[in-house]
């Protein structure tokens, strides 16, 4: 059965772990994100339109655009959903690895990646997924690379929150303040076959540019290199620290303070922030286009 974008937006949760975890980041990006749920509500908020017939017309055009596979919106949704569910599996693997270190299940260490390496790949693949999803949703706006980078850098609302969550939950918490150089070093030393084994990568592999795993790895590395500066600036400008994040999250995840690898894995499994904010971004962009085209 076909995906119904209006149902997806209507069914976005207003509470639960994902929303609570995202709200802990509000202090770093104050006022940027409100948890916008409901299809008509999103139309009214984004366009400031109140006329019900106009809202209906905007909704119908947005749905038509979404349902046309050649428009790329469905692929973007697939990416946001897949990278979350694949990284959830990674979280399970990370937990298994932790158990492996603590208990007699030592052999698990040999078949599951070390948490740090797993988190490194997870962070890199999620970042690349964002770039690819951005292109599916927005095309390549502008006439030059500078225009494109300006569009990519002009993140706001739920897109900025997604990036804040990526940097915090998949970067700073599991890898520390120097997460970006750590991750870049790791992917530069990684072989294509190692990437192929990674579940997060395998979840979205077909959408990452590059003719084979080697080509895809080099695309991932280049994307990471070009956004590293942005991520580092974001962390220092916003004053994001591992300690500060853990303090905030400890509020609803008891006992997480001293077990950072558990916390990272727990966030992986339980917090679907890519899917949640991805659906919100998709709805916003569809609606913006629909209201302009009518």
């Amino acid at each position, binding site marked *: 059965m*076909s995906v*119904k974008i*209006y*149902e997806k937006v*209507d069914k976005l949760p207003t509470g639960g772990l994902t929303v609570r975890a995202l709200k802990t980041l509000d202090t770093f990006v104050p006022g940027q994100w409100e948890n916008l749920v409901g*299809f008509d509500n999103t139309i009214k908020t984004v*366009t*400031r*339109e109140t*006329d019900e*017939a*106009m809202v*209906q*017309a905007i*909704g*119908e*055009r947005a*749905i*038509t*655009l979404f*349902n*046309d596979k*050649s*428009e*790329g919106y469905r692929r973007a949704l697939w990416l946001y959903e897949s990278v979350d569910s694949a990284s959830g599996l990674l979280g399970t693997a990370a937990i298994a690895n932790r158990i492996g270190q603590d208990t007699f299940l030592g052999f698990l260490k040999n078949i599951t990646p070390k948490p740090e390496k797993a988190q490194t790949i997870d962070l890199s693949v999620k970042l690349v997924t964002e770039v690819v999803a951005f292109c599916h*949703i*927005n*095309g*390549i*706006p*502008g*006439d030059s690379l500078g*225009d*494109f980078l*300006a*569009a990519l850098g*002009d993140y*706001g609302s739920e897109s900025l929150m997604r990036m804040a969550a990526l940097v915090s939950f998949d970067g700073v918490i599991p890898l520390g303040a120097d997460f970006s150089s750590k991750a870049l070093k790791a992917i530069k030393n990684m072989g294509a076959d190692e990437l192929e084994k990674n579940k997060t990568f395998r979840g979205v592999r077909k959408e990452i540019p590059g003719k084979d795993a080697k080509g895809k790895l080099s695309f991932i590395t280049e994307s990471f290199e070009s956004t590293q500066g942005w991520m580092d600036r974001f962390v220092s400008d916003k004053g994001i620290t591992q300690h500060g994040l853990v303090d905030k999250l400890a509020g609803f995840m008891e006992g997480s303070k001293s077990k950072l690898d558990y916390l990272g894995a727990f966030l992986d499994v339980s917090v679907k922030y890519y899917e949640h904010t991805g659906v919100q971004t998709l709805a916003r*962009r569809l609606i*913006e*286009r629909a*209201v*302009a*085209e*009518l």
Partner: protein
Amino acid sequence: MTTPRWLRRLFPLLLVCLLTVTACSSAPSKYDQVQQETTGSNAPAAVEKGAQKGGTFNQFFPASEGEFKVVPSQEKQGFAEYKLKRDGETLAMLTINDTISLPAAAKKYETAADTLSGFPLVEQGSTATGLLVNGRYQVKVLSRSDGFTGSDRLTWLEKFDLEGLSGLEANTRAYRRVQKKNAAKAAKAAKQPKTAIPQPTPESAPPSLVPQPAG
């Protein structure tokens, strides 16, 4: 493998439960009809093949000036969008789209009472103002901030290179093909008995079909 008799007896009951749950889980929506019409193998394309590339429109957008920044936002087939920003705040969206895929969008300009630089001008609701170039290319400014008024929208509409855009051919072969196809579709629809196609009431008719001259 054989199914135990008790399980076989339970099957009809399970089936009823399943159907009940499935039926209840998806409440009807006012968007179900459009969903049905736009999915499946015979669904019409959202954007006509002959629509101009979004990138063609980039050259006609206003440039950043002073404290106002014009930032590229979306570029898809038949559509380009920029954000107008000041101090990080989005004041408005600036867009150009090809109405080849949405004839109703162009039709609303037929009865426009006002013009801007010679192009028909329409105010849509309280947050958008648009004009139509060459009967095909729609240029719009949509407010995203309370302080960005109707007169601001007019000011920024004038900053587009409208003359340049009017040099973009509208009556292309693809355009004529789509016009012909739409005319044939309309003639076919007119022949159908009225009960076959529910006619929208004036209240539910899409406002895009109703010309709204600028005030």
